[in-house]
């Protein structure tokens, strides 16, 4: 008993008052703390998308049947993708909008592939809270700017699917895609 207290009280060569026990306590709590934090990694990371969700195959869309002025909804990552065949009038309308008047300034050229300006391919997910905007189907409202209209909270997109009015902060997102042939688009 007495021996332990002496040993703990003053280390040979150590400062008086600093006990060997202090070091052991700090080391033990630190090791346990690091261990506990390390355990959090799998506990948190398991919530992130699993391998099969991430591996969702890319989608191929045949666009040969889409006439000028029409649009279709395809599915990519279980979310809708709008593929729209713009009319010359719609392209002209998108081009004449001054960039500085836009909330998320982008030209139609930046949002389409070179030489394929008539093919507007965007996610069909409103950048506000994720509803599917209207405007692809025949007779659906296209909003004040002739593009897409989100009925949930009233966001309006123009003919380049750029946000023009309403609460959405960004233009409809353009997914990664390539024209694998003149009539087939590979999304993802």
């Amino acid at each position: 008993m007495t021996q332990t207290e002496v040993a703990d009280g003053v280390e040979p060569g150590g400062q008086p008052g600093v006990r060997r026990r202090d070091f052991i306590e700090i080391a033990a709590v630190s090791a346990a703390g690091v261990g506990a934090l390390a355990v959090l990694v799998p506990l948190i990371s398991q919530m992130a998308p699993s391998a099969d969700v991430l591996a969702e195959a890319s989608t191929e869309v045949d666009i040969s049947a889409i006439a000028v002025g029409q649009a279709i909804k395809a599915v990519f990552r279980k979310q809708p993708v709008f593929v729209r065949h713009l009319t010359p009038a719609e392209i002209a309308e998108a081009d004449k909008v001054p960039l500085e008047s836009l909330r998320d300034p982008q030209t139609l050229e930046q949002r389409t592939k070179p030489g394929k300006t008539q093919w507007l391919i965007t996610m069909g997910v409103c950048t506000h809270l994720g509803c599917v905007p209207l405007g692809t189907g025949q007779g659906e409202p296209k909003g004040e700017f002739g593009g897409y209209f989100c009925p949930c909270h009233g966001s309006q997109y123009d003919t380049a699917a750029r946000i023009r009015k309403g609460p959405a902060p960004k233009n409809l997102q353009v997914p990664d895609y390539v024209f694998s042939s003149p009539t087939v688009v590979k999304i993802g």
Partner: protein
Amino acid sequence: MSFPWAKHYQPTHPAMVWLDERLPLPRFVYNSVGAGFPVPRNLNYMWNFGVLAGFCLMVQIVTGVILAMHYAANTDVAFSSTEHIMRDVNWGWMLRYGHANGASAFFVVVYAHIFRGLYFGSYKAPREMIWLLGVVIFLLMMATAFMGYVLPWGQMSFWGAQVITGLFSAIPLLGDALHTWLLGGFAPDNAALNRFFSLHFLLPFVILGVVILHIWALHIPGSSNPTGVEVKSESDTVPFHPYYTAKDGFGLAVFLFFYCGLLFFFPNALGHPDNYITANPLQTPAHIVPEWYFWPFYAILRAFTSDLAIPFTHIVLVPAKLLGVLAMFSSILVWFALPWLDTSPVRSGHYRPTFRKAYWALVVDVVILGYCGGSPAEEPFVMISQLAAAYYFLHFFIILPLISLVETPQPLPFSITESVLGRDEHATLAPAE
């Protein structure tokens, strides 16, 4: 803690004596909700809602655990397993309608409980902790109710999940990653449905735990009362049992009358027909609204339609989407600050004429917000909800602190006994009299 005149538990039966020495559970019940708990004698019917809320929680847990025995949390079968409960499971229709309408009933009761607290100043010292725990319970209830609504995997379930989890994507920088992490994907799908089911099962028991803390904190100063004057002597109190067990029992019967009326005669009155359509990720319903109990907060979310920008420039300080989300969360988080925003020493609205007017104005304001939140996102509802949302925050941050400073309260009764009987022997004995 209890008052010194509280009755003491004295078991007479040898078995109860034996139990009391080993696990004094009957003693605990006796002192918490029995004859050993003295309660102000003047509690009115607004004080029934705490017990009713506890009852609702138990209804939800019992019906919910049973529903979980028949439900399957998989996007392929979730909708049909819900219909299986409705059509094939014995009494399944009653259990599910009871659970769905039980959620509405729970919120009715809890809103009454909250607004009781707001009127009678139940959040003031020494009861701040009870109030704070109550706000935590309310937030947990909102999360639980939201996730429960997703489980049937109908159109409203899916799009509710899409919109509400979309709120998190408004957070700068981290938002999109957080959104994907919460859902376990890029849109609500099997991963999201499964975790919502798991959490929807867990959270009610977390709520139960916080409710126990809430009641524990209540037992330290004891119940507030309509005068807001603290208990001074034994004549101010009656034992909880039989006085308030009887009064709460009567209140429970009245509550059950309305609850059963809703459950058996109007089971779908508060639901949405769209939720009887299987979830379709490619088709948003024309008019998505949350359940009625979220409408006031939903109206605040939608009230923000333009960015906060530096005037005459295009420099956006806070985008509209983030503003709406921040405002919606703040509208509840402000309750955490309430005990320190209302600095008047008088608790009860009975004795605060100016506060009383502001209180009723707030009630009207919240009803207007609720109405707008349930309406389509178009004029005039957008403008009305903007004004009502502005008033909501004005009430808590400006009006309430200001009233506390300038208001002259009406004279308080000497004691609870005096307020009930018109006289109090202790009052007449006081030298000042």
